[in-house]
């Protein structure tokens, strides 16, 4: 028994957040909501539904 930590959502979330900051976004709440939403969408659609080995 053990847990498997998925690296992709963490890495994608960090990349997304840093990109938003670099593109000039400064409001924290919308940054977090948007980052989490896009990362979750990408992971669910591409990783889980389309089974792309992310």
């Amino acid at each position, binding site marked *: 028994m053990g847990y498997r930590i998925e690296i992709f959502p963490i890495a994608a979330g960090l*990349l997304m957040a840093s990109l938003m900051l670099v593109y000039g*976004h400064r409001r924290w709440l919308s940054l977090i909501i948007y980052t989490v939403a*896009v990362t979750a969408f990408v992971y669910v659609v591409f990783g889980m539904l389309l089974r*792309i080995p992310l």
Partner: protein
Amino acid sequence: MNAFAEGLNALLDVQILLNMGVGLVLGFMVGAFPGITATMAVALAAGFTMTLEPVQGLAVMLTIYVAANFGDRVPSILINTPGTPASIATTLDGYPMAKQGKAGLALTVSAIVSAVGILASLVLFSVAAVPIASFARDYFRSPELFALVIFGIAIMIGISSKSMVKGILAGLFGLMLGTVGTYAATADQRFTFGSLELVEGVNFIAVIIGLFGIAELFDQLLTHRKNRVRPISSLGRWWPTWGEMKQTGRATAISGGVGLGVGLIPAAGGDIAGLIGWEQARRASKHPERFGKGSIEGVAASDTASSATLGGSLTTTMALGIPGDSVMAVMIGSMIIWGITPGPTLFTNRPDLVVSIVGIMLLATLLSLGLSLVRMKGMVKLLDVPQQYLWSGILIFCIIGTYATSNSLSTVITMLVFGVVGVLLKRMQVPAGPVVLGLLLGPLAEENLARTMAILPTKPFFSVVSPIAIALLVLAVLSIALPAIRAARKPREQRASLEESILPTSSIEQIEHAREELAQDPELLTSTVRNIEKKGARRARRTDKENEK
């Protein structure tokens, strides 16, 4: 079952309709956001559609192609910034119309004539594609195919840059990239440096997404261009009167003809057709003085011409295997991955697919027209979406899309490298179009050249190289030489843009004059025209000084 019924039957699938729905929404959004081109969207879609059936994948990509052609008029008309290069000419009259409170009318007329243009071009495709393909199949051997490829690349070089040397360099860079990988004739590996990833050549989709998509995103990252332009919000009435529709008839007919013709020329796309169509309609108009000042005829002319290129591009792509424009270059790349080779043999091997393609384009046009007329008011709100959401989201999707093409990180690295190359090319004002065309068509040109060279010593020269091949090569030379000579005859400061290389000086003066007049009306002023106002003020000061002297 015959090919016609089979082709239509393939479309009677819920999955196809769903895919077209996705393509429609994506295409409209891509068109509406300035900076994201249809080429970039189709390249990105190519990554995700690879696992689908060919017809399903084509449904997404062709619908994006068509819908972007409708969506890109919205920012042209409302914020004076073309959504994609194809709608450059729409800004000439569309924005002045919007400033006069006729934005709704301009948007509706634009959508209607765009649909007319695309439908007319589909008729051209249906009529001309089979004869052209049969002609090519009967008369095009290796020398002719080589000449045709060179002609395509030469046209792309001739039209895509104000500096011919930069265009040629870009084309040569593309051809060089095309030599990487295994050489089909001898199975030798060239320029792979022992790397397994390069054995099959440079990944075409990764290069395209890099050059057209990532380059733009990196450029935004470096420059932080903020979109301070507020879209014009008073849209006025939407539906044209019968008289206005009648008024646009002549412009639509003339520019439609121009668009159909330009579309057939390999590599020439909607941007050039729009400008030439606008100019020809102005010449033929009863009121040429109204062009550039918000003429409904001008909007109709530019949009009909740029939309009418779609069928022509499709004809060249499907019948000859030479991309009609940059979107079609991506489409060829995808089709080759599906195991379908566009070209003369497509009509004999897969006639049903050709019928399906026409069906998809037809349906996509009608759906886009419907959506344009119903949802234009909602589209305007899209222009207010903050850029940072857009750019960061697209970058993530580019990475995932490219990774999905091969499930390998090397493809993503290729894409990022070409993103950097794309930014450098952009900064040096070197066009990316010839690079892509060189990469795609280089191996084809090389293969046919090698075959021709092998046959040449065994037969007399003129029995191998036909007049068709010679004519195509002469046209290729002319298509580079003529614009170069025309540019050389103009003063250096007038060689500034595509508009100026196509339109005569009198037309450019008229447009500038009209824009300055509009800018002088302080009530209508938005931030977009302030530069023009400054330019106008500078010019006025200069004239004053000259007068004083």
